């Protein structure tokens, strides 16, 4: 861990501060102030993302620093969409999630821009990674709702938001096609780049595990939700754990050597 004494580092820390303040304000029922701070955090992160894009000369989605910067960027629009369209709450948790997502970019992963190697110079690079990033944020939100459901927390709202179990279901329903798209685009890209749409790489296998867990959740909910709502929530939490392994452990641990070493 190291503090970044650069303009981009400063931007990330300012964004984290805005997100933290937003989370605290929203948790303290200062909704108006919280939403303004949340928006400001998003705008600052957008500036940082744009700056990185300019420095790197390509869309910044190549390494772990850039991935977490992107995740920190996506939390606000996804939170807004979930609240307005899916009627899902949890804004305070979303803002605090933004702090958590920016933390690795701000303090853990190094920030040197890298040139794209030949394998990453593909039109499928951006859609594949973006689909996954959006789905990861959505599933993280779903996990928060799942935990709240297990903890029997009530929904704090003006009645327009759904309860936690339904919220988690709606978010998994929204995120699952993107997870599927990310998996299929990755397979297609692998076929074009390396000749294999599936090469049993640890990254691919853990991506499949994540997808299967959420697939299992959808089947459980179809089969038995009225009898075992908590089982669904447990599956969502397991699914996020698999996503964290896919995103972090596979890239950083020597236990899983493979072709997806670009992001490490």
């Amino acid at each position, binding site marked *: 861990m190291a503090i970044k004494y650069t303009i981009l580092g400063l931007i990330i820390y300012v964004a984290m501060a805005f997100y933290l303040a937003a989370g605290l304000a929203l948790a303290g029922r200062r909704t108006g102030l919280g939403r303004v701070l949340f928006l400001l955090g998003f705008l600052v992160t957008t500036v940082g993302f744009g700056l990185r894009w300019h420095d790197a000369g390509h869309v910044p989605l190549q390494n772990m620093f850039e991935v977490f910067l992107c995740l920190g960027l996506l939390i606000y629009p996804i939170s807004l969409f979930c609240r307005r369209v899916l009627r899902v709450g949890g804004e305070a948790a979303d803002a605090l999630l933004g702090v958590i997502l920016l933390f690795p970019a701000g303090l853990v992963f190094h920030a040197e821009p890298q040139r794209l190697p030949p394998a990453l110079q*593909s039109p499928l690079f951006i859609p594949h990674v973006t689909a996954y990033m959006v789905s990861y944020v959505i599933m993280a939100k779903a996990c928060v709702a799942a935990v709240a459901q297990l903890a029997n927390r009530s929904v704090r709202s003006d009645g327009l938001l759904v309860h936690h179990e339904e919220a988690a279901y709606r978010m998994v329903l929204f995120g699952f096609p993107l997870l599927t798209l990310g998996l299929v685009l990755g397979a297609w890209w692998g076929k074009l780049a390396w000749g294999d749409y599936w090469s049993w790489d640890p990254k691919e*296998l853990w991506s*499949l595990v994540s997808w*299967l867990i959420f697939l299992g959740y959808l089947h459980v909910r179809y089969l038995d939700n009225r009898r075992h709502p908590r089982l669904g929530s447990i599956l969502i939490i397991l699914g996020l754990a698999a996503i964290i392994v896919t995103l972090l452990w596979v890239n950083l641990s020597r236990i899983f050597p493979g072709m997806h070493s670009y992001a490490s």
Partner: protein
Amino acid sequence: MRLSRLLLALTLVFIALLASGATFGAFRGVEGAAALFRSGPLVAFWILFAALLLFGAFYFKQLRRSPASLALHLGTLLILMGAMWGSADGHRLAEQYAGINKVPRGQMKLFQGETTNLVTPNVLSGAAAVAVKLPFSLHLNHFVVEYYDPWQLVAMAPPVTGPMSEATMRRETIPWHVGDQVSIPFTDARLEVVKYLEHAEPTYAEGDIPRLSLTTSEGQPATIVRAEVDQTVQLPQVAVRIVKVFGNMKVVPKKDKFETVDIPGAAENPALQVELKWPDGRTELRYVMAHFPMHGNNPNALVLHYLYPMPSGARPAGKGNPPAMEVVLRYKDQEQRQWLMPGPLDSSAWISLGQVLGLEGGGVPKNPMATPPPRLFMIQPTGSPVKHYISDISVMDAGKEAVRQVVEVNAPLHYGGYHFYQQSYDVHKKLFTILGVVSDTGLNLVYAGFILVVLGAFWRCWISPALGYLRQRGEHGD
């Protein structure tokens, strides 16, 4: 328990088993996971899984009534079927029962200018790989590695004192920008880069021809002569005479021996036949081939190289061609325009400042063999990340060029039931490229499955719920 609930429960069991297997496989590494999922019990699992998907599609009315769900399930089934059909075992069964003989996957190694139809199949470790012939051939026209950083300009001069060797040569990189005039290190000369073409092809002066380069083991600079019949070079230990010049040398069987002939047409194998003659009367015939520079050469003795003609100019060309740089050299009252452009096999181009501007070697008594004048090099940047590595490939089918394509990572060539991928290359000298060869059996099924799964997922999870919500709002008059 009703059959429907039993089938759904069974589906959950299969999903859980597959997830568990994938988790276990991830810890075993790529080869371990591949071996696990291709093992007997897992093959049985795949077949049962496929049967379950198929049965479910027929049994569950709700599934048949929901096109999205049906697409998801059938898409998964198609992916499984395509993967099984395209696997190594699938190819083996196709060969055994249908007589379809295809290589599941392998590699082709191609030198520039070479044509081959031989594929070395990928086999299990420990097994011997026997090369297989494809019904068509691939010809490597051109191979290039491009780097992110532009080529460098480097001045090189012999040492001021002491013996001259590779280690004692003085080198200095010249920072350059088009339009700027800079000093050439080790000299009083100046240069200006007037043009830089990122991808260029050479133009040659009329009458310019290839050359023969001779280097002895004593580390003396190369002697270079025009490749003309009866051109003779007298070296201290041996005399070398060019006997024959081939535009396209081929070795053909004739009666009970082999003969070298010149085949007209594309210059796939330019070569020279030279005669070496020693003072004691011994003679030896040797072939010097453009695309096989190490053939017959002993680095500890006389080394002969085929050199392409020096380009007199360059014009812009497509991706995959090397760069070219036009410079203006100025010294005292002289001004010379020159092109720096590497030859087809070269990773550098150079100009002798002695030949162009009359400069001499630095400070050492005049001896053309021992004190070469400074040279200006344009070389590939060392340490720069690779931007592309590209093979310009022609497919030769029934003696004619059927397809010509630049193959690079993410842009394979598809022909004759195979995909050819830019897999790797000779990192040290860039003499050959390695193409990965993969059969396309089952691929259309897999791709069709991908499309169905993605469309089914979006329709089932996004569009259907949205339509249901809009219908509800319409019914409630909102």
